[in-house]
Protein backbone atom coordinates (compact mmCIF):
# COMPACT_ATOMS: atom_id res chain seq x y z
CA UNK A 1 0.00 0.00 0.00
CA UNK A 2 1.09 3.49 -0.78
CA UNK A 3 1.53 5.85 2.21
CA UNK A 4 -1.41 8.22 2.62
CA UNK A 5 0.79 11.34 2.53
CA UNK A 6 2.31 10.28 -0.79
CA UNK A 7 -1.10 9.45 -2.23
CA UNK A 8 -2.44 12.82 -1.17
CA UNK A 9 0.50 14.65 -2.75
CA UNK A 10 -0.01 12.74 -5.98
CA UNK A 11 -3.75 13.39 -5.93
CA UNK A 12 -3.16 17.09 -5.38
CA UNK A 13 -0.71 17.16 -8.28
CA UNK A 14 -3.20 15.39 -10.56
CA UNK A 15 -5.92 17.74 -9.44
CA UNK A 16 -3.78 20.76 -10.32
CA UNK A 17 -2.84 19.25 -13.68
CA UNK A 18 -6.53 18.66 -14.49
CA UNK A 19 -7.42 22.21 -13.48
CA UNK A 20 -4.73 23.43 -15.90
CA UNK A 21 -6.03 21.05 -18.58
CA UNK A 22 -9.56 22.42 -18.14
CA UNK A 23 -8.08 25.85 -18.86
CA UNK A 24 -6.55 24.46 -22.09
CA UNK A 25 -2.99 23.51 -21.02
CA UNK A 26 -2.21 20.61 -23.39
CA UNK A 27 1.14 19.79 -21.81
CA UNK A 28 -0.39 19.48 -18.33
CA UNK A 29 -3.12 17.29 -19.82
CA UNK A 30 -0.68 14.94 -21.54
CA UNK A 31 1.44 14.68 -18.37
CA UNK A 32 -1.68 13.93 -16.33
CA UNK A 33 -3.00 11.23 -18.67
CA UNK A 34 0.41 9.54 -18.93
CA UNK A 35 0.72 9.59 -15.13
CA UNK A 36 -2.77 8.14 -14.74
CA UNK A 37 -2.47 5.43 -17.41
CA UNK A 38 -0.97 2.77 -15.07
CA UNK A 39 -3.83 3.34 -12.61
CA UNK A 40 -6.43 3.13 -15.40
CA UNK A 41 -4.84 -0.10 -16.63
CA UNK A 42 -4.75 -1.56 -13.11
CA UNK A 43 -8.45 -0.81 -12.57
CA UNK A 44 -9.41 -2.31 -15.93
CA UNK A 45 -7.21 -5.39 -15.45
CA UNK A 46 -8.81 -6.02 -12.07
CA UNK A 47 -12.17 -6.32 -13.82
CA UNK A 48 -11.22 -7.92 -17.14
CA UNK A 49 -9.26 -11.12 -17.52
CA UNK A 50 -8.30 -10.62 -21.15
CA UNK A 51 -5.32 -8.18 -21.37
CA UNK A 52 -6.44 -6.76 -24.72
CA UNK A 53 -9.96 -6.15 -23.34
CA UNK A 54 -8.40 -4.39 -20.36
CA UNK A 55 -6.30 -2.19 -22.66
CA UNK A 56 -9.40 -1.38 -24.76
CA UNK A 57 -11.28 -0.46 -21.58
CA UNK A 58 -8.38 1.78 -20.48
CA UNK A 59 -8.61 3.56 -23.86
CA UNK A 60 -12.41 3.86 -23.48
CA UNK A 61 -11.74 5.43 -20.08
CA UNK A 62 -9.27 7.90 -21.63
CA UNK A 63 -11.87 8.93 -24.22
CA UNK A 64 -14.56 9.34 -21.53
CA UNK A 65 -12.20 11.37 -19.33
CA UNK A 66 -11.66 13.62 -22.33
CA UNK A 67 -15.40 14.00 -22.96
CA UNK A 68 -16.38 14.72 -19.37
CA UNK A 69 -13.26 16.57 -18.21
CA UNK A 70 -15.47 19.59 -17.46
CA UNK A 71 -17.26 17.59 -14.73
CA UNK A 72 -14.17 17.48 -12.50
CA UNK A 73 -14.25 19.93 -9.60
CA UNK A 74 -10.64 20.75 -8.54
CA UNK A 75 -11.78 21.32 -4.96
CA UNK A 76 -12.47 17.57 -4.71
CA UNK A 77 -10.02 14.62 -4.82
CA UNK A 78 -9.10 13.57 -8.34
CA UNK A 79 -8.62 9.83 -7.86
CA UNK A 80 -12.27 8.92 -7.09
CA UNK A 81 -13.37 10.86 -10.18
CA UNK A 82 -10.85 9.04 -12.36
CA UNK A 83 -11.51 5.62 -10.80
CA UNK A 84 -15.30 5.95 -11.21
CA UNK A 85 -14.87 6.55 -14.95
CA UNK A 86 -12.40 3.66 -15.40
CA UNK A 87 -14.62 1.29 -13.38
CA UNK A 88 -17.61 2.23 -15.50
CA UNK A 89 -15.81 1.64 -18.80
CA UNK A 90 -14.37 -1.67 -17.58
CA UNK A 91 -17.84 -2.84 -16.53
CA UNK A 92 -19.26 -1.82 -19.94
CA UNK A 93 -16.46 -3.64 -21.75
CA UNK A 94 -17.03 -6.71 -19.61
CA UNK A 95 -20.76 -6.70 -20.40
CA UNK A 96 -20.08 -6.30 -24.10
CA UNK A 97 -17.57 -9.13 -23.92
CA UNK A 98 -20.19 -11.25 -22.16
CA UNK A 99 -22.74 -10.60 -24.89
CA UNK A 100 -20.22 -11.19 -27.67
CA UNK A 101 -18.92 -14.41 -26.19
CA UNK A 102 -22.39 -15.89 -26.46
CA UNK A 103 -22.18 -15.55 -30.25
CA UNK A 104 -18.46 -15.93 -30.89
CA UNK A 105 -15.82 -18.49 -30.03
CA UNK A 106 -12.28 -17.40 -29.40
CA UNK A 107 -10.15 -18.75 -32.27
CA UNK A 108 -7.31 -20.10 -30.14
CA UNK A 109 -9.71 -21.72 -27.71
CA UNK A 110 -11.57 -23.22 -30.66
CA UNK A 111 -8.33 -24.70 -32.01
CA UNK A 112 -7.49 -26.16 -28.61
CA UNK A 113 -10.85 -27.83 -28.48
CA UNK A 114 -11.12 -28.87 -32.11
CA UNK A 115 -7.61 -30.15 -32.87
CA UNK A 116 -7.45 -33.29 -30.72
CA UNK A 117 -10.75 -34.57 -32.08
CA UNK A 118 -9.87 -33.71 -35.61
CA UNK A 119 -6.44 -35.35 -35.28
CA UNK A 120 -7.95 -38.44 -33.69
CA UNK A 121 -10.54 -38.75 -36.44
CA UNK A 122 -7.91 -38.35 -39.16
CA UNK A 123 -5.65 -40.94 -37.57
CA UNK A 124 -8.50 -43.41 -37.26
CA UNK A 125 -9.44 -42.90 -40.92
CA UNK A 126 -5.87 -43.41 -42.05
CA UNK A 127 -5.52 -46.63 -39.98
CA UNK A 128 -8.76 -47.98 -41.42
CA UNK A 129 -7.53 -47.23 -44.96
CA UNK A 130 -4.21 -48.96 -44.25
CA UNK A 131 -5.96 -52.09 -42.96
CA UNK A 132 -8.23 -52.22 -45.99
CA UNK A 133 -5.33 -51.75 -48.38
CA UNK A 134 -3.32 -54.50 -46.70
CA UNK A 135 -6.30 -56.83 -46.96
CA UNK A 136 -6.79 -55.94 -50.61
CA UNK A 137 -3.13 -56.64 -51.38
CA UNK A 138 -3.33 -59.98 -49.53
CA UNK A 139 -6.36 -60.90 -51.62
CA UNK A 140 -4.38 -60.44 -54.85
CA UNK A 141 -2.99 -63.51 -56.64
CA UNK A 142 0.55 -64.45 -55.53
CA UNK A 143 2.27 -63.26 -58.77
CA UNK A 144 0.57 -59.88 -58.68
CA UNK A 145 1.31 -59.49 -54.97
CA UNK A 146 5.01 -60.18 -55.53
CA UNK A 147 5.26 -57.88 -58.57
CA UNK A 148 3.50 -55.03 -56.71
CA UNK A 149 5.65 -55.49 -53.62
CA UNK A 150 8.92 -55.40 -55.54
CA UNK A 151 8.20 -52.67 -58.10
CA UNK A 152 5.88 -50.28 -56.18
CA UNK A 153 6.48 -50.85 -52.49
CA UNK A 154 10.19 -51.67 -52.47
CA UNK A 155 10.55 -49.47 -55.55
CA UNK A 156 13.06 -51.77 -57.29
CA UNK A 157 13.86 -51.47 -60.99
CA UNK A 158 12.24 -54.02 -63.27
CA UNK A 159 15.63 -55.77 -63.75
CA UNK A 160 16.25 -56.04 -60.02
CA UNK A 161 12.72 -57.20 -59.39
CA UNK A 162 13.12 -59.77 -62.16
CA UNK A 163 16.33 -61.15 -60.73
CA UNK A 164 14.86 -61.18 -57.17
CA UNK A 165 11.58 -62.88 -58.13
CA UNK A 166 12.68 -64.95 -61.09
CA UNK A 167 9.80 -63.50 -63.13
CA UNK A 168 10.46 -62.05 -66.56
CA UNK A 169 10.37 -58.28 -67.00
CA UNK A 170 7.28 -58.66 -69.22
CA UNK A 171 5.52 -60.82 -66.64
CA UNK A 172 6.34 -58.30 -63.89
CA UNK A 173 4.93 -55.45 -65.99
CA UNK A 174 1.70 -57.32 -66.68
CA UNK A 175 1.33 -58.53 -63.06
CA UNK A 176 1.95 -55.02 -61.63
CA UNK A 177 -0.50 -53.50 -64.09
CA UNK A 178 -3.19 -56.04 -63.20
CA UNK A 179 -2.58 -55.63 -59.46
CA UNK A 180 -2.99 -51.85 -59.67
CA UNK A 181 -6.10 -52.18 -61.83
CA UNK A 182 -7.59 -54.63 -59.36
CA UNK A 183 -6.88 -52.35 -56.37
CA UNK A 184 -8.27 -49.32 -58.17
CA UNK A 185 -11.47 -51.20 -58.91
CA UNK A 186 -11.74 -52.38 -55.32
CA UNK A 187 -11.40 -48.82 -53.93
CA UNK A 188 -13.64 -47.29 -56.56
CA UNK A 189 -10.91 -45.20 -58.21
CA UNK A 190 -11.54 -44.58 -61.94
CA UNK A 191 -8.76 -45.34 -64.33
Amino acid at each position, binding site marked *: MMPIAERDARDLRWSQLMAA*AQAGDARAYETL*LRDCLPLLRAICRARLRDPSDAEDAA*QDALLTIHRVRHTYDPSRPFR*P*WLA*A*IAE*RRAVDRGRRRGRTSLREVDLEAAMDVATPERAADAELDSRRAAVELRRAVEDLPQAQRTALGLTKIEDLSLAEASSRSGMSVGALKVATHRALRSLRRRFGVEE
Partner: protein
Amino acid sequence: MRSEDLITQLAAGLRPVRRVWHPAKSTAVWLLLAGGVIGAAIAVFGLRHDLAQRLASGFDLPQLIAALATGLLAAFAAFELALPDRDQRWALLPLPAVVAWLATMGWGCLQDLARFGPEGLRLTTSYPCLAFIAGLGVPLTMGMLWLARHAAPLRPTPVAALGGLSAAALASVGLSAIHHLNAAVMVLVWHGLAVLVVTLVATFLGPRVMRAEEAAAPA
Protein backbone atom coordinates in the same frame (compact mmCIF):
# COMPACT_ATOMS: atom_id res chain seq x y z
CA MET B 1 -3.74 2.20 -31.52
CA ARG B 2 -1.48 2.32 -28.47
CA SER B 3 -2.87 4.05 -25.40
CA GLU B 4 0.18 6.35 -25.30
CA ASP B 5 -0.57 7.48 -28.89
CA LEU B 6 -4.21 8.09 -27.96
CA ILE B 7 -3.06 10.33 -25.11
CA THR B 8 -0.86 12.33 -27.51
CA GLN B 9 -3.82 12.77 -29.87
CA LEU B 10 -6.22 13.82 -27.10
CA ALA B 11 -3.73 16.35 -25.73
CA ALA B 12 -2.94 17.73 -29.20
CA GLY B 13 -6.57 18.72 -29.81
CA LEU B 14 -7.21 20.06 -26.31
CA ARG B 15 -9.55 23.00 -25.91
CA PRO B 16 -10.42 24.86 -22.71
CA VAL B 17 -13.72 23.85 -21.13
CA ARG B 18 -16.20 25.55 -18.80
CA ARG B 19 -16.69 23.52 -15.66
CA VAL B 20 -20.21 22.25 -15.00
CA TRP B 21 -22.20 24.06 -12.34
CA HIS B 22 -22.37 22.84 -8.78
CA PRO B 23 -25.51 20.66 -8.33
CA ALA B 24 -27.04 23.34 -6.08
CA LYS B 25 -26.68 25.96 -8.81
CA SER B 26 -28.01 23.57 -11.47
CA THR B 27 -31.01 22.82 -9.23
CA ALA B 28 -31.69 26.53 -8.74
CA VAL B 29 -31.54 27.16 -12.50
CA TRP B 30 -33.81 24.17 -13.10
CA LEU B 31 -36.37 25.39 -10.56
CA LEU B 32 -36.41 28.82 -12.20
CA LEU B 33 -36.88 27.22 -15.63
CA ALA B 34 -39.61 24.81 -14.50
CA GLY B 35 -41.25 27.52 -12.37
CA GLY B 36 -41.35 29.85 -15.37
CA VAL B 37 -42.97 27.25 -17.63
CA ILE B 38 -45.48 26.08 -15.01
CA GLY B 39 -46.20 29.68 -14.04
CA ALA B 40 -46.96 30.45 -17.69
CA ALA B 41 -49.33 27.45 -17.82
CA ILE B 42 -51.09 28.70 -14.67
CA ALA B 43 -51.38 32.15 -16.25
CA VAL B 44 -52.99 30.59 -19.32
CA PHE B 45 -55.42 28.27 -17.48
CA GLY B 46 -56.04 30.45 -14.41
CA LEU B 47 -55.84 29.55 -10.73
CA ARG B 48 -58.66 27.44 -9.31
CA HIS B 49 -61.16 29.77 -7.70
CA ASP B 50 -61.07 28.10 -4.28
CA LEU B 51 -57.29 27.71 -4.01
CA ALA B 52 -56.82 30.24 -1.18
CA GLN B 53 -59.70 28.68 0.74
CA ARG B 54 -58.36 25.14 0.39
CA LEU B 55 -54.84 26.13 1.35
CA ALA B 56 -56.15 28.05 4.34
CA SER B 57 -58.19 25.06 5.47
CA GLY B 58 -54.98 23.02 5.34
CA PHE B 59 -56.38 20.29 3.07
CA ASP B 60 -53.84 20.49 0.28
CA LEU B 61 -50.85 22.21 1.83
CA PRO B 62 -48.92 19.15 3.11
CA GLN B 63 -49.51 17.39 -0.19
CA LEU B 64 -48.26 20.39 -2.19
CA ILE B 65 -45.20 20.77 0.04
CA ALA B 66 -44.41 17.05 -0.36
CA ALA B 67 -44.77 17.27 -4.15
CA LEU B 68 -42.56 20.36 -4.25
CA ALA B 69 -39.98 18.64 -2.05
CA THR B 70 -40.04 15.62 -4.39
CA GLY B 71 -39.39 17.89 -7.39
CA LEU B 72 -36.59 19.70 -5.60
CA LEU B 73 -34.82 16.67 -4.11
CA ALA B 74 -35.15 14.58 -7.27
CA ALA B 75 -33.53 17.41 -9.26
CA PHE B 76 -30.68 17.82 -6.78
CA ALA B 77 -30.09 14.05 -6.75
CA ALA B 78 -30.08 13.97 -10.57
CA PHE B 79 -27.45 16.73 -10.75
CA GLU B 80 -25.32 15.00 -8.10
CA LEU B 81 -25.51 11.66 -9.92
CA ALA B 82 -24.63 13.35 -13.20
CA LEU B 83 -21.10 13.84 -11.82
CA PRO B 84 -18.84 10.76 -12.11
CA ASP B 85 -17.44 10.70 -8.58
CA ARG B 86 -20.72 10.94 -6.67
CA ASP B 87 -22.12 8.08 -4.65
CA GLN B 88 -25.01 6.29 -6.32
CA ARG B 89 -26.98 6.43 -3.06
CA TRP B 90 -27.83 10.02 -4.00
CA ALA B 91 -30.63 8.37 -6.00
CA LEU B 92 -32.42 7.67 -2.70
CA LEU B 93 -32.56 11.37 -1.72
CA PRO B 94 -36.13 12.05 -2.96
CA LEU B 95 -37.48 8.82 -1.46
CA PRO B 96 -38.68 10.37 1.88
CA ALA B 97 -40.46 13.14 -0.03
CA VAL B 98 -42.12 10.60 -2.36
CA VAL B 99 -43.26 8.54 0.63
CA ALA B 100 -44.56 11.70 2.35
CA TRP B 101 -46.38 12.70 -0.84
CA LEU B 102 -48.06 9.30 -1.15
CA ALA B 103 -48.84 9.36 2.58
CA THR B 104 -50.52 12.79 2.41
CA MET B 105 -52.64 11.61 -0.53
CA GLY B 106 -53.47 8.36 1.27
CA TRP B 107 -54.36 10.29 4.40
CA GLY B 108 -56.63 12.49 2.27
CA CYS B 109 -58.40 9.37 1.02
CA LEU B 110 -59.01 8.22 4.61
CA GLN B 111 -60.37 11.66 5.54
CA ASP B 112 -62.72 11.57 2.52
CA LEU B 113 -63.83 8.09 3.54
CA ALA B 114 -64.57 9.30 7.08
CA ARG B 115 -66.45 12.35 5.85
CA PHE B 116 -68.39 10.99 2.87
CA GLY B 117 -68.32 7.22 3.35
CA PRO B 118 -67.58 4.93 0.35
CA GLU B 119 -68.88 7.69 -1.94
CA GLY B 120 -65.76 9.68 -1.04
CA LEU B 121 -63.57 7.05 -2.75
CA ARG B 122 -65.51 6.96 -6.00
CA LEU B 123 -63.11 7.06 -8.90
CA THR B 124 -63.92 8.67 -12.23
CA THR B 125 -61.66 9.33 -15.16
CA SER B 126 -59.73 12.59 -15.35
CA TYR B 127 -57.71 12.58 -18.53
CA PRO B 128 -57.00 16.33 -18.34
CA CYS B 129 -54.85 15.63 -15.26
CA LEU B 130 -52.86 13.04 -17.14
CA ALA B 131 -52.58 15.27 -20.21
CA PHE B 132 -51.47 18.32 -18.19
CA ILE B 133 -48.78 16.55 -16.17
CA ALA B 134 -47.50 14.50 -19.10
CA GLY B 135 -47.84 17.40 -21.57
CA LEU B 136 -45.83 19.67 -19.30
CA GLY B 137 -43.66 17.04 -17.62
CA VAL B 138 -42.17 15.44 -20.71
CA PRO B 139 -40.90 18.68 -22.35
CA LEU B 140 -39.66 19.90 -18.96
CA THR B 141 -37.79 16.62 -18.53
CA MET B 142 -36.00 17.29 -21.82
CA GLY B 143 -34.90 20.66 -20.45
CA MET B 144 -33.68 19.08 -17.23
CA LEU B 145 -31.75 16.45 -19.16
CA TRP B 146 -30.12 19.16 -21.24
CA LEU B 147 -28.82 20.68 -18.01
CA ALA B 148 -27.53 17.24 -16.95
CA ARG B 149 -26.36 16.05 -20.38
CA HIS B 150 -22.77 15.53 -19.14
CA ALA B 151 -24.11 12.37 -17.44
CA ALA B 152 -24.69 10.76 -20.85
CA PRO B 153 -21.40 8.77 -21.01
CA LEU B 154 -21.63 7.58 -17.40
CA ARG B 155 -25.01 6.87 -15.81
CA PRO B 156 -27.74 8.43 -17.92
CA THR B 157 -30.59 6.15 -16.80
CA PRO B 158 -30.86 7.09 -13.09
CA VAL B 159 -30.27 10.75 -13.95
CA ALA B 160 -33.03 10.63 -16.58
CA ALA B 161 -35.43 8.85 -14.21
CA LEU B 162 -34.84 11.39 -11.43
CA GLY B 163 -35.16 14.23 -13.95
CA GLY B 164 -38.53 12.85 -15.08
CA LEU B 165 -39.70 12.48 -11.48
CA SER B 166 -38.68 16.05 -10.68
CA ALA B 167 -40.40 17.50 -13.76
CA ALA B 168 -43.60 15.50 -13.15
CA ALA B 169 -43.75 16.38 -9.44
CA LEU B 170 -43.40 20.09 -10.21
CA ALA B 171 -46.03 19.82 -12.97
CA SER B 172 -48.31 18.14 -10.44
CA VAL B 173 -47.89 21.12 -8.09
CA GLY B 174 -48.80 23.40 -10.99
CA LEU B 175 -51.85 21.30 -11.79
CA SER B 176 -53.03 21.41 -8.17
CA ALA B 177 -53.13 25.20 -8.45
CA ILE B 178 -55.29 25.06 -11.57
CA HIS B 179 -57.53 22.04 -11.57
CA HIS B 180 -60.60 21.12 -9.53
CA LEU B 181 -59.92 17.77 -7.95
CA ASN B 182 -61.43 17.68 -4.51
CA ALA B 183 -61.42 13.93 -3.97
CA ALA B 184 -58.05 12.76 -2.64
CA VAL B 185 -58.42 9.41 -4.37
CA MET B 186 -58.65 11.19 -7.72
CA VAL B 187 -55.47 13.11 -6.96
CA LEU B 188 -53.73 9.94 -5.81
CA VAL B 189 -54.68 7.93 -8.88
CA TRP B 190 -54.45 10.53 -11.65
CA HIS B 191 -51.50 12.55 -10.41
CA GLY B 192 -49.75 9.36 -9.36
CA LEU B 193 -50.38 7.74 -12.72
CA ALA B 194 -49.21 10.82 -14.62
CA VAL B 195 -46.02 11.09 -12.55
CA LEU B 196 -45.35 7.40 -13.13
CA VAL B 197 -45.87 7.79 -16.90
CA VAL B 198 -43.49 10.77 -17.14
CA THR B 199 -40.86 9.02 -15.02
CA LEU B 200 -41.06 5.88 -17.16
CA VAL B 201 -40.87 7.87 -20.41
CA ALA B 202 -37.82 9.69 -19.01
CA THR B 203 -36.20 6.43 -17.91
CA PHE B 204 -36.54 4.77 -21.31
CA LEU B 205 -36.15 7.73 -23.69
CA GLY B 206 -34.07 10.06 -21.52
CA PRO B 207 -30.68 8.37 -21.99
CA ARG B 208 -31.06 8.58 -25.79
CA VAL B 209 -32.07 12.23 -25.59
CA MET B 210 -29.10 12.98 -23.32
CA ARG B 211 -26.67 11.31 -25.70
CA ALA B 212 -28.08 13.34 -28.61
CA GLU B 213 -27.94 16.55 -26.55
CA GLU B 214 -24.42 15.81 -25.41
CA ALA B 215 -23.25 15.06 -28.95
CA ALA B 216 -24.91 18.23 -30.28
CA ALA B 217 -23.33 20.47 -27.66
CA PRO B 218 -19.86 19.16 -26.75
CA ALA B 219 -18.11 20.64 -23.76
